[in-house]
């Protein structure tokens, strides 16, 4: 089924078309949400909200942009709203991270394969540091960087999703990388991994 056919059938209320749309774009939406939220369960929840919004607002979809661009836009907006609505999560997240790292240490001592446990622990710590650095970026930089890195979108595709010029996206990603490097260098100096 082509994109136009899917949209047409969706507008006629076809469940089969909706299933096809979900099967085709599930990975794209979940990955985009994950790039912003850094939590698999939250990313899946928000991805479901995205598809529900798509199902409800498909009548107003105009075929002048691609389905994927439309999905990216909804996914980004939903994820940003989720972050804004869950600022309190930060506190719980830090608590959760502490528990996770403690669990990792516990697993390290209880499992026989300590090399493997060391590797996992280091990776977890690296992931936490990276997520913290990405989360501290300004919203626009975070969106552009996440779409570029997690979804491998080109600057042109990101410019369509974010409704900005290609040069603005270039500048956003350049600044995002600089900020990330600064934060990761500080962490490296403090030996937080």
């Amino acid at each position, binding site marked *: 089924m082509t994109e136009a056919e899917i949209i047409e059938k969706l507008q006629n209320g076809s469940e089969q078309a909706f299933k096809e749309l979900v099967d085709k774009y599930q*990975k794209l939406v979940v*990955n985009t949400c*994950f790039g912003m939220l850094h939590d698999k369960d939250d990313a899946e929840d928000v991805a*479901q909200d995205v*598809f*529900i919004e798509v199902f409800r607002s498909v009548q107003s979809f105009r075929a002048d942009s691609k389905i994927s661009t439309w999905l990216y836009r909804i996914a980004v907006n939903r994820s940003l709203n989720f972050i804004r609505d869950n600022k309190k999560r930060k506190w719980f997240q830090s608590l959760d991270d502490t528990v996770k790292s403690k669990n990792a240490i516990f697993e390290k001592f209880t499992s026989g394969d300590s090399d493997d446990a060391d590797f996992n622990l280091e990776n977890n710590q690296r992931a936490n540091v990276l997520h913290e650095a990405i989360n501290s970026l300004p919203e626009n930089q975070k969106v552009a960087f996440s779409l570029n890195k*997690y979804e491998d979108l080109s600057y042109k595709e990101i410019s369509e999703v974010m409704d900005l010029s290609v040069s603005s996206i270039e500048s956003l990603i350049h600044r995002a990388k600089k900020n990330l*490097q600064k934060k990761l*260098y500080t962490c*490296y100096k403090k030996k937080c991994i």
Partner: protein
Amino acid sequence: MKCKTIHKNLIFFLEGDLPEKEEKQIEAHISSCNECSAFAQDLKKTLGIIEKEKTTETNPFFYTRLKARLESQAEPAKVPFWKPVLVNIIQPVFFSILLIAGIYTGFKIATPVQVNTASVHYTSEEIFPYLNEMQSEPIEGFLME
């Protein structure tokens, strides 16, 4: 090239965003500087996490869960006809009355009782033994007993 310059451009070097000339200069510096080489390795490992995190598999229950959510949201819960009246009118009125009654009772309790003492006169002798019991029954007396 100084280490400070390297640190500023290392991420662009790792991402392959630099012009060839600059790339070679950084490469040469890293091969001779342990500090920059260690940071480059660390940065590469940290950025490599992104590749590992990308979802490659799909959740097989995603569509089932999504459909269940859609169906549950499609059927609006039946609200009894009296519930909006209870929630929007009766409850606020009840709690307002309770609040006003509480404040009124509070004021009533706090008002000092007006006792007409004008006609009663006590002399200091009459009051003294009552107020100063300890003098008539000193504690030393009890202790001695």
